[in-house]
């Protein structure tokens, strides 16, 4: 942990837990009883409770979006965008971010104990859809006394939740910010997810998801899944710039006896290893399935215009030029559907070499445009 926090950091944060005893009816038809959500909040809720912003997290992140936990070297996953003077300005907004159900960082998920068996849920945890997350988040909002969110914001899978919110609870949000997202995944995208899942399943330590009973974790599978993910989150160009063809050891004539030869390999191993120590394999499989099945307009006759006609909020849609996992074209489809539905929308395509990861990074134009939008939101809801 840094000795002093930067001025534009929310500083030391302590995660909280909220218990829910009323069963949550899931999209799959099953019920989840007695679940809990881990969440964090930054900033102060104003007197008329109008300045709350909900952050929806993506595949591998969690409720720790900003600031530092006791003992941490690095801040939360979206510290670039949340804090005093940052786009989601905690001097003006009350920011809430919850670990979704099915997660593995404190909220009820596959690694939690199934009350019916007294053992971890493991692979038996009910399959989830993004709308289940949205309903759980809505209940958290109710408990926190938030009747309407000033904005619901998310990148990637988080953007999918934000869009779902706009259809499920139209009157409960004023603004919806959808970053590097899509109304549904492409076949190529599902294919990458399946390769990642297969990597996990083929790990002998996976035991069909019951690894907890064997006191082990499918570390190799998770590492491989994350490595595949990382390749797709970056652009070819950025990987070239960042790692080039630099060798970590040995030489070009003879190669190296070291298993890690190129710099890019070292990076992937590091990312994969780190991830496999903090993430649950069943959660990874569960959440990639949520991504695959997400289809915003399916129940609206596959018509995105009809879907978005439900929405009452205003939208900001952002994409990044080199993001090939959630390509700008997907964001343009969202924007076009919103315009055709007569909704207020702003769309920007940020020129950035970082690929899908760009949405997490402090890119100048991205931050200033995002900040401009959020300032307007803040002006609108402040008394």
């Amino acid at each position: 942990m840094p000795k002093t926090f930067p001025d534009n950091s929310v500083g030391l944060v302590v995660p909280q837990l909220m218990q829910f005893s009323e069963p949550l009816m899931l999209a799959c038809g099953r019920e989840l009883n007695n679940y809990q959500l881990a969440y964090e909040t930054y900033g102060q809720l104003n007197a008329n409770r109008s300045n709350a912003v909900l952050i929806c997290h993506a595949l591998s992140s969690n409720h720790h979006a900003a600031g530092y936990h006791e003992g941490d070297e690095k801040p939360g996953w979206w510290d670039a965008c949340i804090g005093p003077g940052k786009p989601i300005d905690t001097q003006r907004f009350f920011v809430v971010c919850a670990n979704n159900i099915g997660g593995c960082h404190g909220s009820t998920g596959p690694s939690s104990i199934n009350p019916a068996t007294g053992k971890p849920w493991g692979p038996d945890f009910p399959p989830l859809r993004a709308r289940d997350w949205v309903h759980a988040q809505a209940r958290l909002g109710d408990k926190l006394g938030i009747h309407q969110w000033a904005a619901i914001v998310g990148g990637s899978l988080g953007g999918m939740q934000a869009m779902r919110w706009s259809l499920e609870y139209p009157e409960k949000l004023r603004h919806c910010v959808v970053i590097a997202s899509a109304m549904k995944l492409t076949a190529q995208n599902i294919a990458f997810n399946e390769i990642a899942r297969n990597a996990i399943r083929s790990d002998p330590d996976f035991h069909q998801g019951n690894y907890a009973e064997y006191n082990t974790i499918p570390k190799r599978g998770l590492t491989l899944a994350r490595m595949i993910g990382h390749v797709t989150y970056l652009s070819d160009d950025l990987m070239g710039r960042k790692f080039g063809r630099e060798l970590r050891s040995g030489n070009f004539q003879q190669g190296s006896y070291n298993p890690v030869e190129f710099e890019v390999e070292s990076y992937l191993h590091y990312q994969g290893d780190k991830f496999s120590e903090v993430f649950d394999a069943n959660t990874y499989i569960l959440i990639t399935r949520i991504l695959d099945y997400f289809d915003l307009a399916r129940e609206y006759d596959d018509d995105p215009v009809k879907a978005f006609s439900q929405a009452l909020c205003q939208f900001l849609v952002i994409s990044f030029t080199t993001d090939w996992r959630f390509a700008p074209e997907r964001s343009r489809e969202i924007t076009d559907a919103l315009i055709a539905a007569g909704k207020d929308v702003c769309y920007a395509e940020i020129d950035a070499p970082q690929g899908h990861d760009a949405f997490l990074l402090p890119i100048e134009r991205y931050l200033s445009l995002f900040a401009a939008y959020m300032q307007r939101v803040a002006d609108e809801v402040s008394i």
Partner: protein
Amino acid sequence: MNDTLRIDLSIIQNWITEKSRVLDLGCGDGTLLRLLMDNKKVLGYGLEIDADEITQCIRKGVNVVEQDLNTGLSNFKDNSFDTVIMTQALQIMHRPDLVLDEMLRVGKECIVTFPNFANWHARLYLILRGRMPVTKQLTYQWYDTPNIHFCTVKDFEVLCHEKNIYIMDRKVVAQRFPDHLLKDLAPNSFAETAIYHLSKNH
């Protein structure tokens, strides 16, 4: 320039129906759309590619979409807007004729404004100096100007005729003496800015 702009904006405003759907191509900092939102309660969208202008639109609460007009408007359906507007940008397009086709496909009506290159100041500049005109209105040098397809009031009307585009109305703007007195008598020579209200011919 500023005064001319005000006049052309107010002319445009008069041609816009209350609560209609408006698409502004090359909307800049969103001044026109903000005006139309405030005074005509329109549902407006602007297309723009300049990063700073886009942020300005967002600050104003104007719907702005980052889109290069030279790639067309194929993402918009036929007649999906009541009015499609393009102010002072036709001369920047790679193919102004195709842009006009697209505007008239997407919009039931169109409004187009452009600098009149046949204004006598420009003519005199070219004749006397033998160099591409650099005037108060057209401040660029030939090599750095974004204006790659200049036209005159006459040129534009010939194109409309050839394309069977109906000119619902035309207004010309000039602020200098004597242009402002003569602009309506001889628009091709004295108009600084031409403003057209167009629709498909039925």
